[in-house]
């Protein structure tokens, strides 16, 4: 039962206010037509699914309706930081 810091509301809020929106930092290819089926399939479906440090998007669905990023350990479920869309995490798998 997660307690998530919403960087917009600047508060810790209950998981039930949020919805999970998948792995963060997956950028849509600028020119999809130039991609092979494999490359496009990779964008669509293939995920790091890391065990440990994971960067993911959450949506404050019944709160401020903003998306934001969270760095979370998928084994301990500890949330290490939350940060705005368009910014980079300060904690990464490499540094942990």
């Amino acid at each position, binding site marked *: 039962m997660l307690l998530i810091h919403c960087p917009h509301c600047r508060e810790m809020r209950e998981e*039930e206010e949020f919805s*999970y929106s998948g792995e963060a930092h997956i950028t849509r290819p600028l020119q999809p037509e130039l991609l092979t089926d494999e490359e496009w*399939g990779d964008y669509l*479906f293939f*995920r790091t*699914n*890391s065990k440990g440090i994971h960067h*993911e998007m959450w949506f404050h669905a019944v709160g401020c309706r903003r998306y934001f990023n969270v760095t*979370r350990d*998928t084994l301990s479920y500890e949330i290490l930081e939350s940060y705005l869309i368009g910014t980079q995490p300060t904690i990464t798998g490499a540094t942990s």
Partner: protein
Amino acid sequence: MKKYSAFSLLKNALSYHENWQKVWRNPTPKAEYDVIVVGGGGHGLATAYYLAKVHGLTNIAVIEKGYLGGGNTARNTTIIRSNYLWDEAAQLYELSMKLWEGLSQELNYNVMFSQRGVLNLGHNLQDMRDIERRVNANRLNGIDGEVVSPHRIKEIAPLINISPNSRYPILGASWQPRGGTARHDAVAWGYARGADALGVDLIQQTEVTGIRRQNGAVVGVETTKGFIGARKVACVTAGNSSVVAAMAGLRLPVESRPLQALVSEPVKPCLDTVVMSNAVHGYISQSDKGDLVIGAGVDSYNGYGQRGSFHVIEHTVQAICELFPAFSRVRMNRQWGGIVDTCPDACPIISKTSVEGLYFNCGWGTGGFKATPGSGYVFADTVANDRPHTLAAPFTVDRFNSGALIDEHGAAGVAH
């Protein structure tokens, strides 16, 4: 292998049970195997068993980081059915169903496969359209099934609430009489005992930490007990598929999420079938011990922690109380979580990979237990012959590039 029977039980009782044979050996790993199966869960053990039994390969090891059958095999709600929508899935699960039907005798181990039937409830008009469509498809695929009325549902499960005034009224259901449950631990132990008897080395408490490759082909695995050579490596590591794939530099279209379940205290027999509902989000059966075995939903987030969030349990219990108001005063004895590796189309991957000699069987999502025998059977065939078994062919990883997904969300949803 000494055969189990009522007679052997009696004989051993007379000697105070001091002379039972070990159910499997505890071998030290050899330097090299023809095939290493990574993962000693039900699917891995079944794979090893059929590799030995059907394909005559005996120089096989199953490497398990914990204890046999200790992952999702130990944590699921044991529902077995084959009433899937799409031909590809239906045929795969029906192969499993047929294997289940002779499994106790095949293994000389009573897996307590109980064909008490499975109801999948419909609560709105679209549910009923989907049920009609699926049952029609099942019947034309030779799989038993019928659409049943609320009245008939009430006969099958007398404590169910079929009031038309309930918030999610039951409009009907699909009914697969051959579906049911099995004793999950016994499935793993039965396959393990069978595989061991055929010469398979079952190596427990040994974790695979790397997959060694040379020139694009597998040569063996690194483990916590050192390197073990292998010509082929077959990975069946539900809950860790992406982690193991990463050892070979591969990514999978898989996300790992907690799936929770719970049991009540044991109560006298009160539910003689399996009841599942996607719309209210819950499913329930009663074990032979008397526990109500209840499946909860998948948590929304990725997680490897074998636990999920409490509100998922609450929602599930609400669903059960909606379906069975009489169970409101029954009590939850224990709850737990497993990790399910789920593909975007809720169907598994049974596939060769871009690495020669490396095979993956994963992505079963919430529905793996019921597939245990069939999964092992077709995967063993795929590994032994280095080409997809006919029934496995639609389940290659390539479908995520071509777009030929087999969308079983309707059949999977919460449903298992």
